[in-house]
């Protein structure tokens, strides 16, 4: 099975509100070294997009939306600890600016960036 087919299956699981299946497919894609952002963008969000349109058009109602949201949350619980945090850096900005815009951190150079990302990921995994 190709990756694009697996994304389609994940979207389908979200649309159908099959949360266990959505979780299993997400974990499988991670095992296959697919980036978390790609799983979100190509599997989960297209699924929720269909759900939103169907709800808007009265083809589905609240119970169906809620089980889809539950499936999305199941996938997100797996992805979130692995999502790369947004950090900013460089001479023109500072820690205060990073705090103001809600960035995960401020770094002065590339080496500090790697160090900070590693630290954040390991903290999230511990949580």
């Amino acid at each position, binding site marked *: 099975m190709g990756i694009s087919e697996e994304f389609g299956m994940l979207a389908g699981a979200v649309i159908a*509100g099959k949360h266990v299946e959505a979780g299993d497919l997400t974990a499988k894609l991670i095992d296959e070294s697919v980036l978390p952002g790609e799983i979100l963008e190509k599997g989960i969000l297209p699924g929720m997009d269909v759900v939103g349109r169907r709800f808007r058009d009265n083809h*589905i*109602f*609240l*119970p*169906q939306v*809620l*089980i889809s949201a539950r499936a999305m949350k199941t996938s997100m619980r797996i992805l979130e600890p692995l999502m790369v945090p947004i950090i900013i850096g460089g001479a023109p900005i500072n820690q205060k600016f990073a705090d103001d815009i809600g960035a995960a951190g401020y770094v002065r150079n590339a080496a500090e960036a790697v160090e900070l990302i590693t630290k954040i990921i390991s903290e999230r995994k511990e949580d």
Partner: protein
Amino acid sequence: MNSKERVKAAMDLKTPDRVPLMCQMSIGHMLQQLPVSPVEFWFDGDTFAEGLLSLREIYGFDGILISLHGHDPNWRNQIVERGNSEDGEVVRLKDGTTMIFGNDDLPQVDMQEAPKPGLAEINLEDLPKSLDYIPVSQGLHFRIDPRNKFGVIDTIVKRAGKEYSIHGEITSPFDYFLDLLGHQDGLMALIDDREKSKKILAHFAGLIEDLAVEMCDTGIDAIKVSSPFAGSGFISPAFYREFVAPFEARISHSIRKKGVHVYLHTCGAVRDRLELMFDTGASGIECLDPPPLGNVELEEAMKIASKKGFIKGNVDSVNTLLLGTDGDITSDAKDRIEIGKKVGGFILSTACSIAPRVKREKILLLKEAVERWG
């Protein structure tokens, strides 16, 4: 015709001498209009009854809806502390619940609520064997005192039952179901385990049916079934058919067998399920929110209702009564009266309850309208 006969004629789909007028009022609205303590109005059956009687007289309504029943005559014994806050009077009950009583809304409850059980954790054997509460809103229950289930109804029937149409109120099995599981989990449960959901709904339907049949013996003219979450803002017509209609039908049939009218109150957009609602055997439907709150146009609804049951409602309490001009209100009421009068079986009423801040003189315009054009 007196008011009682007028409402009865409309509910019997006969022609009354004029279109009857009977609105249900939110607790907040009643508090705004009455010189009462919100705490006493909530807990004390006599104060509640006096308030309903007095507002009927002020507004000239043809009937009275008694939305709560089962007041504990010894309610003061349940209170351990009363104090004040900027949000209103604060009451602490023996069971640890803290309630805050403002003067324009239902009481707010601040309680250490036990987590709601998941569907899988519910043992059907452990469901309540009798109904001792009304699920008024999320987290807010009104306790039914088993020794005084219908005291407030008895008082009002005795004082006004010969002249005015007196209606009791029960809550739909679907509401009890959502209250048991929590609204979000309750809606998902309908998909996760349809059969178990239906067993729980059937259980509550049995208890509500018993309560309703008992209520019929008080001498009331009709019972309203409050079912606010059964509209298309929440569930599809297919789910309505599967999870709401059979259980409300069971209750409707038992009430009708006692010779008492029964009507279903579902808020919001219900246009796609009007026929299903009538198919439950209810003698009428209340609310029928017009756009923008709902999607029911009275003329179309009257055609669907024709010969099946009566309609009570269709005046928008917020956009017309609260925000509209006197001219808007009069013209809205006139339009509805003319449509309703043509077909018969129509009671002019606000769709949902009269909103708290609607001014008294606005409601009096409805009375003028039925007298002039009804």
